């Protein structure tokens, strides 16, 4: 039963994203702010750091494909970027001290990179004409603030879930 906890969390986060997306754009003081919920990729980065890169990349590929087909209609965009970000997370995390603070900071930095790459892609295929300055102030900044609130609230839950899963798995291996 507990084996399905991680895919279940992924699924719930995947469906939560568009629900929170309904609240955006948010008008704060006459400025329209775009808030993009990125719960799944943050969870996947945590999965890479505390559980297993292989699992994270697999889930990234699967949910990326769903995302591509359901929302974007461009297959290969998210299904490439999700695993790629996980890979980058694994590569960077080898060189930094392992604790919750560094994991949170790393996740936020990678999230910004992720957003920026998507912006560059959509600029390339001219689906958007947003100038860089507008992107930084009305999209990237609000998105980072909102997602960091989410991560600070739930990051330690993610971590504890994965650590218990990992110890359970190790115990099982020990049995055989």
């Amino acid at each position, binding site marked *: 039963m507990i084996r399905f906890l991680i895919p279940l969390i992924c699924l719930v986060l995947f469906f939560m994203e568009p*629900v929170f997306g309904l609240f955006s754009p948010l008008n704060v003081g006459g400025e*329209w702010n*775009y808030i993009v919920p990125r719960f799944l990729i943050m969870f996947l980065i945590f999965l890479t750091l505390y559980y297993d890169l292989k699992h994270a990349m697999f889930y990234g590929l699967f949910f990326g494909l769903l995302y591509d087909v359901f*929302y974007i*209609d*461009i297959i290969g965009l998210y299904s490439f970027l999700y695993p790629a970000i996980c890979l980058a997370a694994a590569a960077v995390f080898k060189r930094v001290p392992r604790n919750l603070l560094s994991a949170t900071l790393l996740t936020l930095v990678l999230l910004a990179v992720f957003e920026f790459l998507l912006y560059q892609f959509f600029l390339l295929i001219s689906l*958007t004409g947003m100038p860089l300055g507008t992107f930084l102030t009305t999209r990237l900044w609000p998105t980072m603030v909102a997602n960091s609130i989410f991560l600070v609230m739930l990051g330690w839950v993610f971590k504890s879930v994965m650590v218990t899963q990992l110890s359970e798995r190790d115990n099982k291996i020990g049995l055989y």
Partner: protein
Amino acid sequence: MPQLLTNKRLILLLLGVILLVALISFSLRDRGNVSLPEQIIKDAVGAGQSVFSRPAHFVTGIFDNVDSLLNTFEENQHLKTRLEEFAGVQAEVKDLRSENEELKQIVGKEEDLRDYNPIQATVIARNPDQWEEKLILNRGSNHGVAENMAVMTARGLIGKVTLTTPTTSTVELISTLNPNYRVSAMVVGGAKDVFGLIEGYDAERRELLLKRIDADIELKEGDQVVSSGLGGIFPKGILIGTITEITIDEFGLTKLAYVKPAADFSLLNHVIIADRVVPEVDGEDNGVTGDDES
């Protein structure tokens, strides 16, 4: 130090990139069509999504209710002043409607560009990454939704259907940057109806651009813009917005008006899909004219 990129990995990476570029360009080329596996995935995800969107709509509904409760007093006073006008207007509308019916019968005209069958739908998701303005609705081709149908709220036009699967449909909002997205519109309120095209969206002002209006025609700020039905796709008379500013377009030959949309594009919940009674004409916008002859 272990080497990150061995030869084998490098080749795999290159192959991956090639495959990726091929996939992206392939799916970019015909985004208007959905293949069968895509349809199955869309329907499955749509079913799951509607489970999650229901409680969300419930919560936003509560907020809306509280909000309207707070404004009750002011609204009530405002409505009371309008009520007396309303009775008169209603009688007049009834009279005009029956007269219109009679005249139509005399002329023998049965179909009207204004008539449409409404299909009620609920928004189950909004494209969460918001680079494109898209909605996903819980009604699809099984319920009679087809591509290019107009989508509106009670307040006005919001977009058109771009993709359908058996149980979901994708709507591209009118506030898109897509240059091929046009709505034939007309300005009402003057002595004569003025025709133009809604083409493009000013993201900073959050207003639509009404282009190709004859330079000689005088327009007023505050005039209402409705769909004209002449594009062959939308029914006639759906409210689009009101004019806020009139300028000359970039070539100096025709006029350009900024139109403030009547509908609110954020927090969309329930929408109406308009299935026009008069058959839709396949135009340049959907590019399937050739297919129909077979």
